[in-house]
């Protein structure tokens, strides 16, 4: 088995969790109301926890004195394999909960399958993470419904959010080369298997939220292969600065 493919696959899973965890953490102290400030930062912590699990495994596989920290803080933009969706700016609350809803629905069905991975470590991480992702999905679905089927303003903001980020959802199901190899290797998830579940869930929630599903449009891609939007550069600059300026510093 090609370890490099397994490492790439694991890093892709880790980077997704880290970047959306970072994005959610940007709400800390700025939440619309106290209880939601705590909710979104809890979700950020959950994501960073998932990222740690995947990075620790990737570091172990990489060897060569790699650590979870060196992988998270010392890789450059083009080495990150996260989906473009997670690096999109928070925007307003509507955009943040919508991004979370799209991503959590994806993670929910992805982890359900990943539990059956032939790689026991990936399967274990998926099984553990599935519980918190179940909550993230419930929380974000309800916010999409409340804002969609809410006031005129909330519906307007939700519709704007859909227009803003829908074109980044396609990439979730466009397999990168290492993902295809991971599937044939027996440890990766076949994205075509979960796309239908994702479509069904999104359709159901949008219906209850009285929101319109967008037309079929061109979808952005490239994040999984290291071709990112300009957003990632700014995220990494903020996130990695401390470790790069003061190497090996600790709390």
């Amino acid at each position, binding site marked *: 088995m090609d370890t490099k493919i397994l490492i790439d696959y694991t890093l892709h899973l880790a980077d997704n969790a880290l970047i959306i965890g970072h994005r959610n953490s940007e709400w800390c102290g700025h939440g*619309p*109301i*106290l*209880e*939601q400030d*705590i*909710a979104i930062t*809890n979700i950020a912590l959950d994501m960073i926890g998932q990222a740690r699990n995947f990075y620790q495994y990737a570091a172990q596989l990489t060897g060569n004195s790699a650590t979870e920290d060196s992988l998270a803080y010392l890789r450059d933009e083009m080495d990150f394999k996260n989906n473009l969706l997670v690096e999109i700016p928070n925007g307003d609350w509507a955009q943040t909960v919508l991004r979370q809803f799209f991503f959590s629905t994806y993670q929910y069905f992805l982890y359900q399958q990943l539990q059956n991975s032939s790689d026991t470590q990936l399967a274990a991480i998926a099984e553990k993470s599935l519980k918190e992702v179940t*909550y993230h999905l*419930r*929380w974000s679905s*309800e916010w999409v419904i*409340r804002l969609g089927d809410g006031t005129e303003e909330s519906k307007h903001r939700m519709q704007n959010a859909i227009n803003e980020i829908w074109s980044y959802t396609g990439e979730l199901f466009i397999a990168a080369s290492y993902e295809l190899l991971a599937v044939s290797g027996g440890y990766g998830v076949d994205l075509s298997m979960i796309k239908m579940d994702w479509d069904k869930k999104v359709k159901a929630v949008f219906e209850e939220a009285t929101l319109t599903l967008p037309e079929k449009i061109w979808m952005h891609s490239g994040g999984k292969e290291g071709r990112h939007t300009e957003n990632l550069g700014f995220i990494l600059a903020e996130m990695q600065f401390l470790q790069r300026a003061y190497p090996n510093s600790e709390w």
Partner: protein
Amino acid sequence: MSTDIKNEWPLWEVFIRSKQGLDHKHVGSLHAADAQMAIENARDVYTRRMEGVSIWVVESKYIHASNPSDAASLYDPANDKAYRHPTFYDLPDEVKHM
């Protein structure tokens, strides 16, 4: 954000039962738009550190409490009524756990 009282979400009282506990204890309050959100907010705010495994939420307006200034007439009379306590009965040995 407007602090006009009628724009604020209703206040809810939160009760949590711990894993080993038998009763739900009052742990605090929070704002939420409805019961479903109140339970999720309670889960996020009051069970982060494994404080409990069961949540009750009640809108604060539905909790009716006794008036502290009535304490004397409500509770003092019970102080000197020993005959209400089951201490004068001799339990037979056969009744082990009373």
